[in-house]
């Protein structure tokens, strides 16, 4: 039977039942942890090459990973029922900070994303990736599901406000991720198929009308968005170069630290958003397949955890965390390989940068807490 086969895989429910051991006692899931550590380690290797062999940057990233792991460990100790209780407060505070960013934020690279809290700076849009699904899951857990019109309206409002605030910063990448997290929760809570279908129909019907009223320069922007190669001096440059890097990698790649595209500085943003192109160029399809498999295993394990919990809040939150992680991977690799328009989304735990790593690991902390506390409560 296929189902038996699935459950017997590593991470299947035979493992889920095992409760003894040190890891369980500190509320961590061994398989997930193993996957994440492997991902981080390979990420550091790619980063070392992408930064042109900068040990400083690589060690800096490693220490950020350490911090993120610590954060995950702390969050894993918090029982889900507390998270559920605090959700409105966390959501409210994050929303306030988003507003503050708009009014008195720090302007970096043409977009306002940061606010200064005394000594350190925070990026509230990043927090929102967790705060919104928390709030939605906590809210929907108290409703009769599938949600009625009223509940749906409230949930939609909870979603639209932060997404709009992030979109005007402007930070399209983050608003897509936040929207993704929110939509996952709504979908799994049982948003009716009829509504989903009519929403798509409406969106399709609105497109031509929108196109009619748009200014020429806006149309041009959309055109280059859809077909970046028509703008080879702007964003098109990035895509042409990243596709060249990926394609020239071939089956086995040019070898670690040997990628000409990245060495010769053709590839832009090569240690941040476009880092997968460096991996593809240097390790070829073999390396890419390994990385994608690793991502798939982590997502598989996360989804199994989500499917095995029984209370509404926990299962909605767990699915939101793991599927957001997937959206990261899909949007990033899709963009770099020229399937999707260019949107600023990093490759999780591989791209250089501390903030997103910390949020991602905090999400996994929540996931582990949900997993381990459930087992205890049941056992």
């Amino acid at each position, binding site marked *: 039977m296929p189902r038996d086969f699935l459950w017997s895989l590593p991470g299947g429910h035979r493992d889920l039942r095992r409760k003894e051991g040190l890891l369980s006692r500190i509320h961590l899931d061994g398989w997930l942890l193993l996957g994440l550590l492997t991902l981080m380690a390979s990420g550091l290797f790619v980063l070392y090459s992408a930064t042109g062999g900068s040990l400083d940057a690589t060690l800096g990233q490693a220490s950020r990973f350490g911090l993120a792991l610590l954060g995950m460990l702390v969050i894993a100790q918090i029982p889900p029922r507390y998270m559920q209780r605090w959700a409105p407060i966390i959501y409210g505070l994050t929303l306030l900070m988003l507003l503050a960013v708009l009014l008195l934020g720090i302007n970096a690279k043409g977009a306002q994303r940061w606010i200064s809290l005394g000594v350190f700076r925070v990026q509230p849009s990043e927090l929102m990736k967790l705060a919104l699904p928390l709030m939605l899951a906590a809210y929907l857990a108290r409703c009769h599901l599938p949600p009625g019109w009223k509940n749906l309206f409230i949930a939609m409002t909870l979603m639209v406000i932060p997404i709009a605030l992030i979109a005007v910063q402007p930070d399209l990448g983050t608003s897509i991720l936040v929207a993704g997290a929110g939509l996952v929760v709504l979908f799994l809570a049982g948003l009716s198929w009829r509504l989903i279908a009519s929403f798509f129909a409406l969106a399709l019907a609105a497109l031509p009308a929108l196109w009619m009223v748009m200014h020429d320069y806006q149309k041009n922007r959309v055109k280059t968005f859809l077909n970046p190669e028509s703008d080879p001096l702007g964003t098109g440059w990035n895509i042409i170069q990243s596709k060249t890097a*990926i394609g020239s990698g071939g089956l086995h790649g040019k070898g670690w630290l040997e990628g000409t595209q990245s060495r010769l500085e053709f590839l832009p943003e090569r240690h941040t958003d476009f880092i997968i192109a460096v991996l593809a160029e240097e390790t070829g*399809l073999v390396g890419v397949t390994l990385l994608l498999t690793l991502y798939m295993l982590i997502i598989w394990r996360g989804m199994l955890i989500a499917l095995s919990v029984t209370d509404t809040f926990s299962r909605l939150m767990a699915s939101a965390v793991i599927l957001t992680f997937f959206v990261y991977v899909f949007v990033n690799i899709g963009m770099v390989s020229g399937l999707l328009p260019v949107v600023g989304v990093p490759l999780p735990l591989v791209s250089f940068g501390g903030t997103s790593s910390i949020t991602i690991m905090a999400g996994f902390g929540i996931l582990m807490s949900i997993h381990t506390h459930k087992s205890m409560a049941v056992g």
Partner: protein
Amino acid sequence: MTEFRRQIKDPEKESRIFLFRGRLLLFFVVLLMLVLLGRMAYLQVFQYDLYTLRSERNRTSVEAIPPTRGLIYDRQGRLLADNLPSHSLTLTRELTDDVKLVVARICMLLELDAACQEALTERSFQRRRPFEPALLVDQLTEEQIARIAVNRHLLPGVDISAQLLRNYPGGEALSHALGYVGRISEEDMRTLDRRAYSGTHYLGKTGVERFYENQLHGQVGYRKVETNARGRVIKIVESELPIPGQDLELYLDAELQQKVYALLEGRRAAVVAIEPKTGGILSLVSSPGYDPNVFIGMLDSSEFNKLRRDPNLPLFDRASRGQYSPGSTIKPMLGVAALENGVVTRDYELQDTGYFQLPNDDRLYRNWKRSGHGLVDLARAIAVSNNTFFYNLAYNLGIDEMSSFMRRFGFGEDTALDVNNARTGLMPSREWKKATQKQPWFPGETLSTGIGQGYWLTTPLQLATATAVLANQGEWVQPRFLANKETKTESLAKKIVNKKNIQLKDTENWKYVFDAMADVMHGYEGTARFSGRGAQYRIAGKTGTSQVYSLSQEKNTTKTDLPEHLRDHAVFIGFAPVENPQIALAIVVENAGGGSTVAAPLARKILDFYLTPERLAGKESNRAP
């Protein structure tokens, strides 16, 4: 579904929906991951050859083609700014192993000094897109080209390209009006749309060149080329031609501009002339000027520093950024305000004994003529520039009314439509003093404002604008360079100020003030009667003196004893012909003494030059061959 059932949670159904949809999503996740893997495999296996080729040939695969900058013409189609072909030397950093060595070799071949070498090194490391050549030297001579060509094998990454460079045939005279283009600096790079400027090395820095940068620049084109390892183009794959910048036609009169600049030679001075009907700026001169061509092809900043250190400030645009007390030149405008407010009438007369006193104050506010002018009415007060009359007028009008009425003439704000970076001057008021100096307004300050001294500051451009509005009998025109009124740009829209026309209850008052101003030039005791003598048309004018250093009123020091830089500025405003004004102008000559001795004769020469018999007959004259 009943109300009751809606309240109760249905964990069974909830779980069923969740498990089904969760598995569905997981299925899609696997599917999409396979799509990604498929895409990668497609690129890396099926298109491997294509991309390997591209990667090997990946040298200058996209070249920007810069647009040709728009030309600038004067009102009669004479070229003020054009583009000349020139050969320049570029360096592509990525094609060189040792940039500093190559730069050193270039400097040796072209016989450049150490300062140049430093500047060139800095230029070659400027931020830009990978494989985009950096511009090092412009305007290569034939000999220099030959030397580079012979030694090409020693200079990897170096190329010689032909391009168009800005040229200003008018030179110094037009420098402050047109501005100039300069090399795009590291600082410009930060705010610039780098895509639109790839391939462009210059941009407008000041003046018209700056204000209309977006129109003049045009749109960049590109060319996708395949090149061999040495950077030689083998094949053009595709290209899009650039769209050249828009040509501009200005109201400026190039010949008038040259004439005025010649008249001001050796002086620190500014002249602005405006066509009252349109607001078109006929001439905007600040002396001394500079040669804008120097900034093009300049190798290092020594030339620029020399201009910057010059004590006469040739880089400073006195016409739109110099701020001076208007002196007595604003007496006609104040006269209009007083007549409109009923503070004086056309018949009102005052006995001037040589000074004015405030009630309960011993201080004497003296007329410039210590014995006084006897019986004066407003017209005579303007013609002889009587101070006592205007002290009295200001006292009765009050600072609040004076300040708000003068604002209607544009004082205290930048009303120019397309003069880049013009200053606002300062129209003092009670509120202004309270806000900035934290002090109440004193009655004595009202009196000094009444003769255009004290806190009041104006730019020559503002004075000319106010004179044009006066000549128009209160109808507002915003001063502008650009003759094409169809052109609408964002920067223009931002600068439209909707000034209300000044409408008088009794329009005869305009004519009364104009006649008084004509008496300044043509009357038997007018302050500028020596400059008005023998004119073929009637001029309305007013002289003024802008105090630099306040001498005690009671001491008998004469101004000629003062060091030059403390002497008064000479000011003049005027328009002509009185019956049908074609030109309104303002003149400020720094540290030259009184307006009647220096500024008024200059004005007469400018008016005589501009108001040719054809123009006076209502035809646009054309002196150009």
